[in-house]
């Protein structure tokens, strides 16, 4: 084993070393220390009088969060604020975000945005163009919640000092998550919004947040968009009807009355679907079909709930109630907003593509004038662990 070409080997060694050194000399692309970024928890977008964009960010102060959550206030008297809120006006979103850097000390980190709050004014003017930045930027988390502020500016909500959670943005997000289990607000992730905006057969809707006190918000209802512009609202019952039809209800409490007895039923599972009936190549009927399973949660009436007939009547009442809620939501969408938020258009595009090609542009108008057929099939699964209420009566 004699290496005759020792020189060659030396050259190889030098080359290898030279290849290793640049590795050490790199600027470490995208290398950023965790202590050198501002963690953005919430972002608000609103329009201004002169057509600019008012961008508000809520930045988390990690050390303050740590001390408040651990309970041992190291600072003693001077309680450090857990978030700070900064706003900047700019022509574009990107400009505003960069502009904020002139106010804050560290670079903004956008992946942690929990909730993006859109202002009412901005929403009415149209959101499609504004959202371009959020799709283009690599840092944005597509699973952040998007929500519309009703009757209040996003800045106000982000600046709110809430007692329940040190970070208002997280507070809003958790509230939305809670309300979803009541079926009265629609939770929309950014990616869903983008999908809906790109889908001509279904108009986007967003959840809404409103302020009800100094330190509290309420998330109930739905913001209805048409062609990327906010056109109106659905209240909580309409929202539930709408969500039942589009199969987005996790659970909901439905109150009904029967023979002066108040009954609260919890929908535990529901599946909804929309269809459009066609005759001779023309749409003739919008059909909504909902299957629901419910439990009796509360029965403030007399008598036992032990026979099949009694349960069957309850089921019928529940079906009526669900049908009513869907009806008012659908009517509002048709008559008032003329916006196909239910996604009938998607069905048409899928099953009648030829017709859709011609009708795509006028679909919202066609949708508004079509008759509606709603079928609800409700089942009551359980009536709770007692058989008879305390005041049994006769």
């Amino acid at each position: 084993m004699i290496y005759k070409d020792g020189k060659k080997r030396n050259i190889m060694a030098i080359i290898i070393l030279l290849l290793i050194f640049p590795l050490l000399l790199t600027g470490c692309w995208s290398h950023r220390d965790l202590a050198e970024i501002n963690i953005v928890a919430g972002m608000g977008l609103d329009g201004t009088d002169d057509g600019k964009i008012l961008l508000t960010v809520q930045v988390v102060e990690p050390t303050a969060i740590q001390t408040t959550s651990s309970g041992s206030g190291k600072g003693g008297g001077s309680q450090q604020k857990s978030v700070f809120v900064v706003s900047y006006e700019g022509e574009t979103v990107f400009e505003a975000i960069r502009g904020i850097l002139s106010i804050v000390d560290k670079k903004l980190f956008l992946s942690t945005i929990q909730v993006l709050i859109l202002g009412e004014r901005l929403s009415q003017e149209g959101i499609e163009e504004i959202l371009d930045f959020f799709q283009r930027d690599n840092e944005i988390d597509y699973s952040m919640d998007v929500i519309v502020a009703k009757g209040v500016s996003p800045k106000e909500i982000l600046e709110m000092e809430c007692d329940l959670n040190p970070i208002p943005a997280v507070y809003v997000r958790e509230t939305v998550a809670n309300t979803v289990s009541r079926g009265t607000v629609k939770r929309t992730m950014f990616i869903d919004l983008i999908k809906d905006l790109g889908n001509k057969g279904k108009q986007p809707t967003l959840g809404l947040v409103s302020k009800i006190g100094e330190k509290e918000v309420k998330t109930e209802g739905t913001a209805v968009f048409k062609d990327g512009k906010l056109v109106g609202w659905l209240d909580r019952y309409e929202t539930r009807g709408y969500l039942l039809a589009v199969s987005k209800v996790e659970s909901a409490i439905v109150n009904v009355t029967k023979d002066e007895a108040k009954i609260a039923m919890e929908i535990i599972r529901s599946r909804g679907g929309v269809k459009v009936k066609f005759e001779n190549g023309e749409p003739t009927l919008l059909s909504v079909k909902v299957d629901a399973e419910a439990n009796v949660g509360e029965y403030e009436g007399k008598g036992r709930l032990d026979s099949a007939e009694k349960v069957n009547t309850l089921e019928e009442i529940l079906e009526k109630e669900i049908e009513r809620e869907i009806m008012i939501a659908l009517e509002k969408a048709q008559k008032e907003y003329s916006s196909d938020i239910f996604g009938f258009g998607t069905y048409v595009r899928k099953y009648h593509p030829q017709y859709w090609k011609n009708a795509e542009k006028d679909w919202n108008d066609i949708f508004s004038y079509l008759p509606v057929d709603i079928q609800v099939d409700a089942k009551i699964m359980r009536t709770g662990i007692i058989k008879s209420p305390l005041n049994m009566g006769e």
Partner: protein
Amino acid sequence: MFGRIKKRSKTENTNNDDNNAQVDSSIEQIPKKVEDVKERLGEIFSGCSDIVLREISCGKEERIGILVAYINGFVDKKILNQDVIRPILDYFSNTELQEERCIFERLKECVVINNDMKEANDMRQAVDGIVSGEALLFIDGEDKALVVGVKAPQTRQVEEPYTETSAKGAREGFVENLITNTVLIRKRIKNPNLKMEMIRLGKQTRTDICICYIKGIANEQIVEEVRERLRKIKNDAILDTGIIEQFISDNRLSLFPTVGSGEKCDKLVGKLLEGRVAILCDGTPYVLTVPYLFIESIQTTDDYFEHAFFASLMRLLRLLAMMVSSLLPGIYVALVSFHHTIIPYKLMISLAASREGVPFSPFIEAFLMIVAFEMLREAGVRMPRQIGQALSIVGAIVLGEASVAAGIASNLMVIIVAITAICSFVTPPLIRAIMLLRFVFLAAANFLGFLGISLTAVAVLIHLCSLRSFGIPYMAPFSPLTSADLKDSIIVVPIWAMVTRPKILRQEKASGKKGTKRLEVEEKP
């Protein structure tokens, strides 16, 4: 420079005539006259105050001269006197000698009581005998000497090994005495097929080395390879098996051990029964086993004495610990320097909070803390035992509390270093390899994030898969996949289901390079 290291790092044989030369030159007949012998020995051992040369004259008219030569303290004088000198004196004073020529045979066959006797035919053998603690009898008129083994037992008690402990199983560990060690093995395998081949290594130390294997179970090719590699060792001193280990490793530069080392008796016996070859060395309790595969790092003797489920769980745990120990600091640095987007939001806040106010970059911070820990560990090994407590207090306070309070390190970093340290002790054979890899992963993570970590991991895997231990692929049974051997790898099947010996050790011709190639060459004659 690289070339030279590389050349030396290969277990290639370039010269092996040295030993032979020594043998040829030193054939020296033993002088017939006792006086000449004494003179010659006096020359050889000049300056050795511990040599004892005693002349005995016995028989009628004191015609028979006998020279007893030994090293003071090395032989058991009591036994020497009782079993050798006294019988000789008694015999010759009572017996009429007919033919003088037979004295040597008489002594050997019916006078000296001791069982362990050999003949030395030349001066070199005689001197060898003396320096190894045997007593030499030179008889007037004979050109050979009688070697009587009356070595005084010089060894400590068989104790529980310090470096390897186990919850279950035997507590006997090897000691510094080679013969005690072979007995410990023999005691457990009562079978003549257990072979113990003795050789001597080290130009100066002439250390006894024993190659131990079970004939019929061990692969003959591997045994031959062991003999061959041992024969090629040219070193003045063999003080420990650690020196042998470095000479006989397949890849001498690799961080990963390709020769096993241990001082636990039952472990070694288990390995012998699997078909491995053991190398014992006089003067050290550490015994080598070859071939040594990667999987052996996560095997312990307890695994076979316990329920297979728990044993398997422990194996998985050890594997996990190994990964954590080498990767965790790197992953942390990659996370907080590059990949913020994949950190969950809540973890992000606590991470950022703990990083707040730390003046160093995560890499420097991790590096400092790990180095501090390694220093502490090294100090723990080296220092006198009495200081241990002081060190542990200082270590705990400085590394744990103070560094965080002073804002030099973040809370999380302390936890990470602690977990890393704990995990590194789970697989003792790999401590050194893992320690170095940790720094490599750390650096890679700091330059390229997860990309760096995965690149390094790939490089390490490639290296591991290319390693051979005495011709056997290091990553067996995974690469090459030997399904029959998977029974005792990441999982352990119950002992009653483990009916076959490791197949990979039995293979006749391992495919591959380095060691294997030479295995094939040596088959020819």
